[in-house]
């Protein structure tokens, strides 16, 4: 830990603001590990949720059969139930059905840990919203583009892959940014199943160090920063993909 920070934090403490995470090595490490866990949740779930969103939207766009019905049912279920309930459902209900392994000294260890359950629940949650986002993005692509591709001999699938998807993606960014900001904030729900993410460790810190007020402010600042980074990254991707004269910029 940088000596300057440490000194600054101790000065602050003298004036009544007790930021243990800046001068206490133990709190600092807890905090950093919680922050890392939160970042890991954000990154991993963002990737999976985008994959789920893309796959689901493709199914909705290309098929009318039972697969599309299944996707619609999944989206409806996720969007209309609380995330906390979904998280508990996976961890307690589905988790209880999963096989249990053993660790080196013979104690039972679940094959799927709480971090993994959080990843599954959050990815499915954000994935459902991303399906809606990509579906409406694809829907915003005027069908004259697909038609031009068909007239050039593209199959429906190839027209989708090479023309509709690249254009639809560009209509999806604003809504995608919303979903991923929501996902970033929603990682705190993993606290409920004991994932040692940022909120979890912060709770430990303020319980031990009795600096609830300070830690609450730190929480707000950190999440504001994290969502800011998410929005910034999507903005950069969007700018890199913007097209001259195309309405989705």
């Amino acid at each position: 830990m940088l000596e300057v920070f440490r000194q600054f934090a101790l000065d602050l403490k003298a004036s009544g603001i007790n930021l243990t995470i800046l001068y206490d090595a133990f709190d600092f490490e807890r905090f950093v590990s919680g922050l890392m866990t939160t970042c890991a949740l954000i990154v991993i779930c963002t990737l999976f949720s985008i994959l789920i969103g893309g796959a689901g939207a493709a199914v909705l766009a290309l098929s009318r059969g039972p697969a599309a019905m299944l996707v619609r049912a999944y989206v409806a279920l996720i969007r209309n139930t609380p995330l906390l309930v979904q998280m508990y459902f996976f961890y307690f209900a589905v988790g209880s059905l999963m096989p249990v392994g053993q660790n080196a000294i013979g104690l039972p260890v679940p094959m799927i840990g709480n971090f993994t359950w959080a990843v599954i629940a959050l990815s499915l949650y954000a994935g459902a919203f991303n399906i809606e986002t990509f579906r409406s993005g694809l829907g915003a692509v005027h069908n004259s583009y697909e038609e031009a591709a068909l007239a050039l001999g593209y199959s429906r699938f190839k027209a989708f892959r090479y023309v509709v998807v690249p254009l639809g993606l560009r209509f999806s960014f604003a809504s995608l940014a919303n979903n991923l900001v929501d996902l970033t904030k929603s990682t705190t729900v993993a606290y409920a199943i004991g994932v040692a993410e940022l909120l979890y460790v912060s709770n430990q810190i303020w319980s031990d160090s009795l600096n609830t007020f300070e830690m609450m402010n730190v929480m707000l600042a950190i999440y504001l920063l994290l969502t800011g980074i998410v929005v910034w990254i999507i903005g950069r991707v969007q700018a890199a993909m913007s097209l001259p004269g195309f309405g989705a910029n």
Partner: protein
Amino acid sequence: MRSATQDGALVSLRGVRKAFGSIEVLRGVDLNVAKGQVVAIIGPSGSGKSTILRTINGLTPVDHGVITVGDITVTDPRVDKVALRHRVGMVFQQYNLFPHKTVLENVAMAPIQVLGEPRRQVEERAKDLLAGMRLPEKALSYPGELSGGQQQRVAIARALCMQPEVILFDEVTAALDPEMVKEVLSAVRKVAEDGMTCILVTHEMRFAREAANRIYFTDKGVIVEQGEPKAFFENPRDPRTIEFLDKVL
């Protein structure tokens, strides 16, 4: 000048009928286009001109009748769509260039992705075609950076790059500012003079008269009258043709 006979025809429509819901849009259309011929279809808005073109390349399936292009039976449900659209090119009123692809990619992508032709060879051809359309310096621009007239000439090059036997032009100047109409019409004219079989839907009567060697007049889903341009424009016989020409000339 050659007159179209059914057996000499490259494109032939026999008794083509098409309804959208309860509205009969084509009510028995017969049309023959010989190889190398330039045919203009004129008629009031909503009379089914675009629909005729779209049935020829199979974008709009018909209810009754037979359409053939060379040895391909378009109305056969098992028609090879790639072969059909290889043979029949189309240029749209709104250009419908792919905004996410450069001009060169727009022209070259279908022969590469659909016909599997070698990229280098196709790109050479595409560059030649762009030069022919007097757009060689625009190869790396995006469609959104071009004027309407330039975009439409790219669209013509794109259709030509598939090396079709016939090209369908659907009111290709209707979306253009007046000062760009001429450049596009002369591009179409060049394509026709190079021997391409062309079926043009147009509201430019003077152009139809100068460029086409046969005129078809449609009204309410039937072909009311047809003839060679001079006879058609100077001595129209059907009262509906006379009324229409009175309005537009």
